[in-house]
């Protein structure tokens, strides 16, 4: 994914590959107008990195919370118990690490979006699946934001604001920054052309 310099990045992003997606979510397949797009593949490595960080934070908190147990074990002359606790730490740490490594690609495969004349549609969720659609005419404004780590991966977050209540801000994280900007421009120009007519 290095083709960020061309004008049509949207069409360059990887379209949904038939095999895996079609089998996994056959419910979500009967739309023909415009293909669903995956997020930027870099989102996987970005997501992994942030997941590692949060796994580390959780691990540290866990260790900090259970360290009094070790102190207690040592104080009561039962070192074997403290070894058990350390083994527990290692297991939890390994599990957290594995989850942080394995989850992002699964999540990536289950997150797609589509933009057409009707509006923006986002599908996401591995177990709990959601599909949300924002009609173009209901778009109030669109934000594209980029955090410091996202900037390292050239990613962006697209936020579509509507006048709704429960879903007043529909967020899509992990688009290529350039793509996010193009989606924003296209949504706004589509809305403006609607307003003129």
């Amino acid at each position: 994914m290095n083709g960020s310099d061309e004008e049509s990045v949207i069409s360059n992003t990887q379209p949904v590959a038939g095999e895996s997606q079609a089998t996994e979510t056959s419910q979500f397949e009967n739309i023909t107008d415009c293909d669903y797009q995956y997020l930027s593949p870099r989102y996987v490595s970005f997501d992994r990195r942030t997941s590692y960080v949060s796994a580390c934070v959780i691990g540290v908190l866990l260790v900090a919370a259970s360290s009094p147990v070790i102190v207690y074990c040592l104080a009561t002359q039962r070192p074997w118990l403290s070894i058990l606790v350390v083994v527990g730490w290692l297991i939890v740490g390994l599990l957290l690490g594995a989850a942080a490594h394995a989850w992002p690609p699964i999540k990536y495969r289950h997150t797609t979006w589509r933009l057409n004349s009707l509006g923006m549609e986002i599908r996401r969720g591995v177990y709990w699946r959601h599909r949300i659609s924002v009609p173009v005419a209901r778009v109030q404004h669109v934000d594209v934001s980029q955090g410091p780590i996202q900037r390292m991966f050239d990613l962006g977050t697209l936020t579509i604001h509507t006048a709704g209540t429960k879903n007043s801000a529909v967020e899509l994280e992990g688009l290529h920054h350039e793509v996010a900007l193009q989606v924003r421009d296209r949504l706004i120009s589509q809305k403006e052309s609607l307003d003129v007519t």
Partner: protein
Amino acid sequence: MSPDSEARPEADDVAACDAEKNQIAAAAEQLHGVDLSLPQRLHVSSLIFEIISNIRRYIVPAVVGIVGAARGANWGAGIAIFVFAISLLATLVRYFTLRYRISGTDLVISEGLLFRRLRSVPIRRIQNVDLTQNPLHRLFGVAEVRIETASGTEPEATLRVLTGSQIEELRAAIFRGVAASPGHPLTEDANAAPIPAASHPWNAPTTTHTFPTHAASPEKQIPEQQIAEAQEKPHVAIPRLVYKISLKELVLAGMASNRGMVLLGIALGFFFQGDFEDRIDIEAWEGVVPATQGPGQLALLIALAFVALMLLLRLLGIGWYILRFFGYQLTEQGDDLRISCGLFTKVSATVPRKRIQLISIHRSLIMRWLHLATIRIETAGGAGSENENAAATVSRRWFLPVVQEAEIGRVIEVLRPGTALAFESSQHDAQPRSLPNSPQAAATSGLQWHGLAPLAERRLLRLGVLFSLLLSLAGWFAWHAWGLLAGLLFLPLAILLARKKARSRKFARTAWGVAYQSGWLTRKLSLSFYDRMQTLSVSQSPFDRRWNMASLSIDTAAAGPADHAIDVSYLDADFAFHQFEELQRLAASHRPKWT
């Protein structure tokens, strides 16, 4: 008002000088003689109402202070005096500094001594002018005015208080301003889509909706007599009565409602807040309650007490309804709906038709027996629940507290022209059991109802059974055999609930939007419209996928407490996805007429 205009010629001159700039103000002045382009003050009685309102705000320290003072503490008296002084000072400052005027196309309100605040509200953005008048207000012939725009959660401006004539002038100027601004959604819409009078059989031929944009131009001279005759301004459409609640309907509604229970709850809360021992002197009751001779007598006494309590509750409910909604009138004026009601505190609220997001018809079991219903609406904006006054409560929460079942279709047609909802009497509900998937509540004909997924009932049943089994398990651990029995007794209820729940939920897609009905005892029917749908979503939990089901929900700008939003679960997955795609298309092609 006409002698006033002669008494103030210099005001005429001032207005004439910048007539081009202050068209609206000039027009207002020609009609009413008070030049709103000059700063106006609140009424003198504002001082009283402002103090009352301020004291309410400082109620906690004030009570603490007074209680302290009553116990002879010096600091208590100090606090009470301090609080009173502060509220008095704030009141005086507000009264002497607050000015409102109409400058060009804006309503400008300035106040403050040290911190000056100047608020300018564009007239064409004003959506609501709500009035509240309690008995004290009526003594002075004044009312509290709230001016709202579509945006905020709080009213844009509160003028506490103005006299009746001041209000009339302000309201006239605002309506004229709205009519005069060509870009306003109200005028735009009236021109774009005039409501065809022919399609409404109840629509009298004389009351057509006219919103002439040119009428407010100052050149147009309107004969004085005509103004005197037509209290409402000639450019604003003539108000037309939509619904009037009779006393009988209010009494019935009060009887059907559980308001009495709520009121009793509040009363008990106050009662028990204090020291229990002080209030109820058990000894004293011994004389009142006669010494019982046998168990039969005791049971009779308890039954009598129960009946008396029920009667009291119903009476309380009736009282509350009459107090709140006495003389309720819903009128239609151009594109606005106006509500006025109240026995002591009179309320008058305006709801622009544009702001209606969701219409919900609620019918509790007793109301269905009485062939009555409640119509609630949800609007965009103005949802400040903390800072709500009586007018807002009525228009946002209670829109139409009670309506004859036969009239529902007509009222809904006024709220949202083009729905053509034929609401039949619920007597029809009871008889046809033969139709498989369109059970008893076929009350709304003209709608193509779709039930839940065929397996939904079984799924809900399984949930209910699981729940009651868990309950009996917990009961077993707590009270052994008796607990188990209690849990198992719950089983038939769970089965009944699952059955009723699954059968009562229905979804329909129509030419104008979507209808969703649910509820077994209290039946709720919500209507959402294509041009009001903000986002659409379908979701599937892992369980949903196992049962091949999905839930469909529609998000609107309904800012009120979404009492019955369109959020349909246990739909057949294919059906839900098909509806989702259709709605996507329809929502995109129906565009909102407001922004």
